[in-house]
């Protein structure tokens, strides 16, 4: 990753060719927000921060959009809209076409043992197919191992809406270093017991024995997101919330 100050690009801008990573063998991989115009031009299609990874010869644009566009491999939290003969219709975000989730795409699910989900219930799922011509498809099982890997129906708990960019930051492998999000760790250090599931579609599910804890986690997440708090401010916010609620 480039260590310089963030480079902000606008749609249609030309990208300095020196920034484009090259490798002898590996082809260049373009992430979201970039478009390749043959023969050799690469043009941003959204406004955001250009991120270049020389090691993986990939580049993409980091942006905080308002609408979730499914892409393969994303973990999402969906809401069951209704059930059809052999799949569920799942709503990823309001007012968008539903995704489909086959009845048998759950861990060790057969015709008889499959989970029965009513409309309005939540599932944590992976996007298994996404392209612009078809409705997205979901799965709650790793198709190669047959294991759930933590995916499946979400019972109880509460869902909080956050921005897409924040959800992405939460989902980063090193969310503290790269994403600058520490609010969940800070809450955990305060001795609060809770579990979370972050959906790439801007939803965070928080489960906890105590209603108070879940509310607190939700408020901390929302406030961090809305006010764009830094790491220090996040710690301060957590301290404040814990004081308030006790």
């Amino acid at each position, binding site marked *: 990753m480039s260590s310089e100050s963030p480079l902000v690009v606008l749609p249609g801008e030309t990208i300095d060719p020196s920034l484009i990573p090259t490798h002898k063998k590996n082809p260049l991989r373009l992430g979201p927000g970039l478009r390749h115009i043959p023969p050799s031009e690469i043009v941003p299609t959204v406004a955001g921060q250009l991120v270049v990874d020389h090691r993986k010869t990939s580049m993409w644009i980091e942006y905080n959009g308002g609408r979730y566009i499914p892409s393969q491999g994303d973990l999402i939290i969906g809401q069951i*809209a209704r059930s059809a003969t052999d799949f569920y*219709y799942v709503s990823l975000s309001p007012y968008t*076409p539903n995704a489909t989730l086959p009845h048998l795409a759950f861990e060790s699910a057969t015709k008889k043992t499959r989970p029965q989900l009513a409309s309005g219930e939540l599932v944590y799922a992976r996007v298994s197919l996404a392209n612009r011509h078809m409705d997205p498809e979901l799965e709650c099982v790793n198709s190669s191992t047959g294991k759930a890997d933590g995916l499946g129906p979400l019972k109880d708990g509460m869902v909080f809406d956050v921005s897409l960019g924040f959800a992405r930051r939460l989902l980063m492998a090193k969310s503290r270093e790269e994403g600058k999000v520490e609010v969940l760790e800070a809450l955990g250090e305060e001795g609060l017991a809770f579990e979370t599931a972050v959906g790439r579609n801007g939803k965070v599910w928080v489960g906890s024995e105590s209603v108070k804890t879940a509310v607190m986690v939700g408020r901390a997440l929302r406030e961090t997101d809305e006010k764009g708090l830094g790491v220090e401010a996040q710690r301060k916010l957590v301290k404040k919330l814990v004081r308030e609620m006790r």
Partner: protein
Amino acid sequence: MPLDTSAYSLALLRVDGRRWNELRRIHAQIRTQAAADGSSYLEMGHTKVMCVVNGPSEPGPRRGATSGGGGGGGQSKNAEVAVNIVIAGFSSVDRKRRGRGDKHILELQSTISQALAASLHTHLFPHSTINISLHVLSQDGSLLAALINAATLACVDAGIPMTDYVAACTAGSTSTYAANDEGADPLLDMNHQEEQELPGLTVATLGDSDRVAVLVCESRVQVSRLEGMLAVGVDGCKQVREILDRVVREKGIKMIQEGTVERGVGLNDMELD
């Protein structure tokens, strides 16, 4: 034409000769329309309304197709209560043209729909619709109350399961809004003339509890008047409920006697005279 309220304090009689706590004559019939699933005809004084209930019925193909995504809910788990009100042109003194989008009528429809939806067991009929259509033949005050009562009766006739009757009536006060006189009397069941001149409200309660399903006040009145008016109104609703209940029972007895309905178990304790 202003209403002379000064006479009230002399004899404690209202313009139509009632005392403060008297209802007007309520006459009601059920099963008046052979074609409908449930129907009723109700008079409260000179306010006359008819009601026809159809359903619960599954929707046609047009409604069933969910439009592109929409909300997360998908199909509804409860039956929808659709209310349609037609106010006949000849129902009041001045012939007022009311368009289809008349907000007052839309508000009445929404109120009746929401009030009945809370009492009817709509969860027993998922994805279906209960159609209630109300016709106003004559208006003389307490219109909303009469509509609610008629709709309740028709729903009973249609055999839609419900927790209890939703009975409604109006209550008013002899004080004008500005006057804070403590001597003002509450009035039960207002007619058109009284509604024009005096503050009032419409109350609907569930069964013989004190729980208020609908409370609509559209006139300016002192807060201190509210308690008295509400108490009188709730009490009036209980009286109305008794009357509605009698209508249903009498019709039931008649149907058994005529042999339309088989005399089943548990009906023996009903007085068949």
